[in-house]
């Protein structure tokens, strides 16, 4: 076998295998043979974005923009939810699905609205997201919507064996969907059930796909990866409210910059009765629940 001097057998075999994989499938070099997103240069990320946009154009028959906005300086996002106002109507759950290109079949719901008994208080053992009612709020019940709590001490990040998930400087925990190996360790580590796995190819109707996306957020995901709420990273990094805040008919949902002393979040923390879910686990969420009345 003739070989160029200096090329090792190992490098040669790698190159051959790479060519074989590339020839057999439609994966692009940017999604399959790349390094971790966090370690790539701006030029490399631009190449990946171009690849993704081409893939989505072919799949959905329209232009999909994949943004790469970075965290703003001096911003740490936080969320506050008024439990005395939430009526459990699930408008947020479906606004989230539409905004973030979650799979419609099988259905993936990043937000789960838990119905709890007023007699029992906050009690996850007796809570259900599957309540089916003609009208809400049902007497004797209250509602606790739960999605990613954007922990300061996230167990999901700690447990990921490949470093595919991390906290951004503005506090959002994100996932590199092309680096995720789908082992679901993060799902078992998350005490809030906030991470969701794509068991089969996510299906999004062409006319319902949201074309405003972010590489770490709501871009359409492949099968076999984990996904979660990113505080609508594609919206919030441009100064907009997350979709769930905008849609809430009772105004239960508040969002803002924790570092802004005159912001809404600080007002809630300073003036209301506030708590976090499962505080005893020391996850230190950036998602606060409060009683506005």
């Amino acid at each position, binding site marked *: 076998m003739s070989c160029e001097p200096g090329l090792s057998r190992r490098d040669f075999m790698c190159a051959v295998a790479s060519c074989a994989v590339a020839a057999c499938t439609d994966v692009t070099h940017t999604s399959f043979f790349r390094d971790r997103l966090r370690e790539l240069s701006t030029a490399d990320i631009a190449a990946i974005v171009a690849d993704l946009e081409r893939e989505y154009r072919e799949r959905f028959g329209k232009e999909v923009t994949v943004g790469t906005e970075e965290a703003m300086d001096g*911003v740490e996002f936080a969320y506050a939810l008024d439990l005395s106002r939430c*009526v*459990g*109507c*699930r*408008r947020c*759950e*479906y606004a989230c699905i539409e905004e973030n290109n979650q799979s419609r079949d*099988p*259905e993936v*719901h990043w937000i*789960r609205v838990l119905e709890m008994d007023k007699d029992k208080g906050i009690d996850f053992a007796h809570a259900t*997201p*599957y*309540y*089916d*009612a*003609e*009208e*809400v*709020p049902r007497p004797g019940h209250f509602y606790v919507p739960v999605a990613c709590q954007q922990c300061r001490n996230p167990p999901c990040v700690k447990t990921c064996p490949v470093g595919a998930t991390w906290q951004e400087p503005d506090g959002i925990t994100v996932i590199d969907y092309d680096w995720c190996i789908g082992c679901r360790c993060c799902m078992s580590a998350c005490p809030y059930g906030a991470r969701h796995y794509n068991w089969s190819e996510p299906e999004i109707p062409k006319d319902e796909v949201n074309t405003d996306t972010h590489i770490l957020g709501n871009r359409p995901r492949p099968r076999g990866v984990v996904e979660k709420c990113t505080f609508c990273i594609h919206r*919030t990094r441009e*100064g*907009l*409210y997350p979709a769930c*805040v*905008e849609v*809430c*008919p*009772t*105004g239960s*949902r*508040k*969002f*803002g*910059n924790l570092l*802004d002393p005159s*912001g*809404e979040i600080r*007002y*809630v923390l300073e*003036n209301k009765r506030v708590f976090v879910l499962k505080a005893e686990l020391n996850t230190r969420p950036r998602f606060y629940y409060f009683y*506005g009345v």
Partner: protein
Amino acid sequence: MPTMPISGSARTWGTVVVFLLAHLASACAESHAEPHSPHPDDDVLRYVPDATAANDLHLPPPPFTEGAFPCSDCHDPELPVRTRRRELKWAHKEIELTHDEEHRWCLDCHDAENRDVLHLANGTPVAFEESHLLCGQCHGDKHRDWRAGVHGRRTGSWNGEKSYLLCVHCHDAHSPAFEAIRPEPPPPRPRRTP
């Protein structure tokens, strides 16, 4: 049982309190004498409603029932002012008052002299465009939260100018409690392999 000796300083304070109470009582008596005619020099404090004046909150216009405003189109000042609670048979039949209805009737909030404005409890007129001032009289805590951007629906931008709605954009002023609504369908339960 021995009585507690009253010290000199306590006696002095007692005199001050009695004096203050007496002063307050006379002030109240004066104000009660002429409830709706403030002193002409008081116009600095007197709020003048101006529907067109730009307000710093950029509030959207109030959601009037179509054809209902201006109220003076129908409410002729010549007509007698009726303050008694009664069944509304001719107009405003759709209004069902369930908002502290035991204590209130139309003219506790709507102004009898100028039908196109509301008025506060002290008689100060308030334009419909700024009706939150009227609501804030009783719901001070909600008004404070609303002003801080915490009570009410938030839309637009978290780091830009806050967008406000009036109380009446979400609450019916005559029946402000929210009605129960139909929820969206529940998520599917996890599938089990046979």
